[in-house]
């Protein structure tokens, strides 16, 4: 089985057509001499175009910061889940107006701070908001990680226990807007919903 041990592989030195064989193999064989050579015009041109596009992508995020109405929220705090739970309870007690499917419906003053609690397996309370008003949603979890997904406007945020995330939203349409959990949170993940009513 063991045949001639040609240790230089398929590009024997001094072969008749070493150039062709060598070139064909070059992604699988060591390069000839130094691997760096000057960029040709094709590469230089494409590299320039590509790098400009990269810079556009980069500055695009800052441009959107200046002109866009949809910005990534950054305001956040650490919070003890137990404390958060108490604050949510107090909030619900103060502003509750009704109940649906066992969940409290809460109508906070327009433009106020609004608590939204995620836990296995519901978002509470149901919120009644005014169209065109800006609310500060104070979002956290009292157990595991959840995903806050406002539908169908399709805004999505991560909800972590121990962290309070402040999300300023301005509902700009009237109707009933479901919330679903889109971070796997246990075997009841697919029953974890909530609701925002805008009028």
């Amino acid at each position: 089985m063991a045949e001639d041990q040609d240790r230089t592989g398929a590009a024997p030195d001094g072969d008749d057509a070493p150039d062709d064989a060598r070139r064909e193999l070059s992604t699988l064989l060591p390069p000839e001499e130094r691997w760096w050579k000057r960029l040709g015009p094709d590469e230089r041109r494409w590299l320039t175009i590509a790098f400009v596009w990269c810079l556009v992508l980069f500055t695009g995020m800052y441009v959107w910061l200046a002109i866009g109405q949809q910005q990534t929220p950054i305001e956040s705090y650490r919070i003890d889940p137990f404390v958060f739970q108490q604050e949510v309870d107090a909030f619900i007690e103060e502003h509750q107006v009704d109940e649906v499917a066992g969940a409290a419906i809460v109508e906070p003053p327009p433009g106020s701070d609004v608590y939204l609690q995620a836990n296995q397996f519901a978002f509470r309370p149901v919120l009644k908001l005014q169209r065109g008003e800006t609310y500060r949603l104070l979002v956290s979890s009292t157990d595991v990680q959840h995903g806050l997904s406002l539908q169908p406007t399709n805004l999505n945020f991560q909800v972590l226990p121990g962290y309070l995330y402040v999300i300023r939203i301005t509902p700009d349409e009237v109707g009933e807007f479901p919330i679903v959990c889109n971070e796997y949170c246990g075997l009841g993940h697919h029953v974890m919903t909530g609701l925002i009513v805008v009028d």
Partner: protein
Amino acid sequence: MATATTPAPTRTCNVTGFVVDRNGQRLALGNIYAAFLMLALGGTLAILIALQRQGLPMSDDWWYRLLASHGATMLLFWLLYFEVAALYWGSTMLLNARMVAPRVAWANLVMMSVGMLLAQWAMFTGRATVMFTAYPPLTAHPLYYVGVLLFAVGVLVACIHFFANVVVAKRERTYEGSLPLVVYGLAAAAIIALYALGTGAVAYGMLFLHSIGLMESVDPAQYRLFFWGIGHGAQQVNLAAMVAVWYALIAFTVGGRPVNEGLSRIAFLLYIAFIHLGAVHHLLVDPGLGTSHRIMNTSYMLYLAVLASLIHAFSLPASIEVAQRERGFTHGLFQWLRKGPWREPGFSALVLSIVYFGFIAGVTGVLMGTMQLNMVIHNTLFVVGHFHATVVSGTTLAFMGISYYLIPLLTERRLVAPRVARWQPYVFGGGVAVLTLGMLLAGQLGVPRRVADLEYAAAPIGVDLWAAGPAPLVMLAVSIGAVIAVTGGIMFLYVIGMTLLKGERSETPDEGLRIAFGPRARLRAPVGEPTASEAAPDAGTGVDVETEHGHVTGLRERWRRFEAPGTYVLVLVFLAWFVVMYLVAHLNLSQSWPVG
């Protein structure tokens, strides 16, 4: 350590001329077989998960278990077993070198497999239904974490073994000069793997300590930062390994090489330096991070890792184009592509993989990683569509393509059923295309990921967004795509399985394949290939183009000043697509509620 022992027995490959170390060959095959078993398991799970969407009766509990195992089986076990095999192949066969410590490598394979089995046991028995991400405070059985850690440590050992093989090969002068480009790319993958596995060990280590009561709690935000070091880092390993495999497939199927190999190497260096920052993609809508931090990291520091991918996006097709033009296919802009060896499974897998990876996976990845755009994408099925485009239509298809060469060359058996192999990349690629496009569209409709019931039948507050309208249709496309893709997967495993069981042992295992180099290379006078008659008018221009830049003479048309004019058009089309998608995504974002 092993230097005093007798050298391992070797053979010279008749097809490629490489000196093959039998230990390296057996170890590469051992890991590849493990990878194929995982592919079979993961595919079985995929079809069950997809059919549950169309009414296959299954409890929610089991759906989540299967989903957890599908994720780990495919993302961790299938890809990493294969990559370990690729590391052994690259560091021994391509360097004419030997495995430095074959026994360690065998023990390592056993350890990885024990870890894999522990994790599978925990997931299938419902003790670890926490998904691949395993976010705390969700807690799994301690042995689940042990299993994943054992597997990860095994991959780490394999990476170190790769470097040891390369160092010993250099010292024993089995190759001269720099590493071949493919091995260089694999080295980049191994380096990225080192730090990915490091952060992964911290993440899963914390969870393990917590699960046995040695750590009181794990901070969910810190965990996410560490976890995505491997969660995304492992995908960057897949990326670098896949690009290396692409370059290998180009060499195998058309004998191509980069116009400027140095540029491709620089691109790999850019990956090593910057790609790890991309882990922050996953934290873009997390509490606790500032704007500048998000932008700098999610952009991989001015998108320098994206620049690397754009370099490859040019370099890979240009390699094919130049090789084909040298073979005489010089007509017009695209004769080189039209006359490509489309019946060769390695070539079709290569091209489909590059196209999907670029147009779908790469573009969606950058969109998701744009800070504000992430808000309308995070944790929807769009994310799932993106990573099926990367690791299934990209990496998996590329790995399938290279398997058609590695298996015959390593087992010295001829490929059985080459006609099935010929169609396989199209079936698999087509299926995955339907699957991923369905998922991407579903994500645009807001469909959440990892949800067992999209009709929310059992939810106290019902959600009827996805029970009617376009969503069921899109989800049907996902299921149909899954069925087609799994059919392609079965075709692949059939060809490979039959080759291993019934393939004719041969000194010339490349019969039926088109291998473009080595003592037996037959591409110069291919059977049934268009010959000089088709290319006659331009015969010889390839040589001109081959000479110094800017000295192309005797060419009338201006575009011929380009070394790879067809590729130039293709990358500009790609860039235009990229720009359009970027604008569409922002238009889409602008229609959401004002938020900040």
